[in-house]
């Protein structure tokens, strides 16, 4: 069945370098996905926010966000300039580990459980797992021409 969402123009935004502007990014993504059912829209907004936060915190400039809806999927993609090659490779490896996990929701819960009792101040590494565990998006990641691409996709229900 043809989805009414097909062939909509993607949302493309240059990413701010200012943390306080992230709420505006979430609002724009929510508006762009106003057609989508509420559950999926909320997931996509969370996914976009977590990916953009990562890019603002750890990535270099320029950085951008693209949200594409076609007949079958919602795709949220963030590109950022690699500011540290080792950190970028670590991100790629973490995404590969998540992709290889048989149950990503369980992986998210395991990470939360591990944080319970962990000393404060350490790296939480919760955002990418949340994208898969709470948001039910699939993640992919690759390095290309000194840019890190993080791509989250979820099928339209």
């Amino acid at each position: 069945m043809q989805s009414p969402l097909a062939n909509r123009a993607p949302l493309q935004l240059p990413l701010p370098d200012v943390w306080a502007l992230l709420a505006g990014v979430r609002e724009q993504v929510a508006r762009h996905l106003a057609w989508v059912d509420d559950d999926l829209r909320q997931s996509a907004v969370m996914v976009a926010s977590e990916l953009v936060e990562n890019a603002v915190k750890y990535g270099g400039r320029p950085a951008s966000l693209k949200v594409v809806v076609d007949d079958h999927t919602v795709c949220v993609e963030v590109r950022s300039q690699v500011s540290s090659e080792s950190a970028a490779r670590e991100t790629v490896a973490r995404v590969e580990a998540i992709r290889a996990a048989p149950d990503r929701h369980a992986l998210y819960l395991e990470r939360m459980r591990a944080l319970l009792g962990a000393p404060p101040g350490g790296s939480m590494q919760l955002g990418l797992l949340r994208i898969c565990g709470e948001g039910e998006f699939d993640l992919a990641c690759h390095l290309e021409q000194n840019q890190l691409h993080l791509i989250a996709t979820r099928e339209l229900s």
Partner: protein
Amino acid sequence: MNTSVGSLHIDGDMDGASLRLKMTGAADLRDGGELRLSLLDVHREALAQHAHEVWVDLKAVEFMNSTALGAFVGWMTEIHKTPGADRYHLTLVASKERRWQRISLHALASFAPETISVLFDQA
């Protein structure tokens, strides 16, 4: 107690043996340290007041990033470290309409059902 961490606002008061907090706004924190300290203040206040329960109404919190969720995990850790006689029950009042609350708060509470529960209400 009234405080703000970024665009997250926290208001609270004692109500008998319960400490009742209402949070509003959004918690999209770059660094979870300030929220961790605010929640530690809540924890200390609950202990000082010998509260049996702490209620946190999160229904009006539109968004919480993973850093802020981590601060809540830190609060749960503090409750767990508290000796049984002083330990209070934490109830998170959440909205079924907000997906992040339905899934991630429920997951948090499932780790310690004896001390933490989630009560779902309409937004």
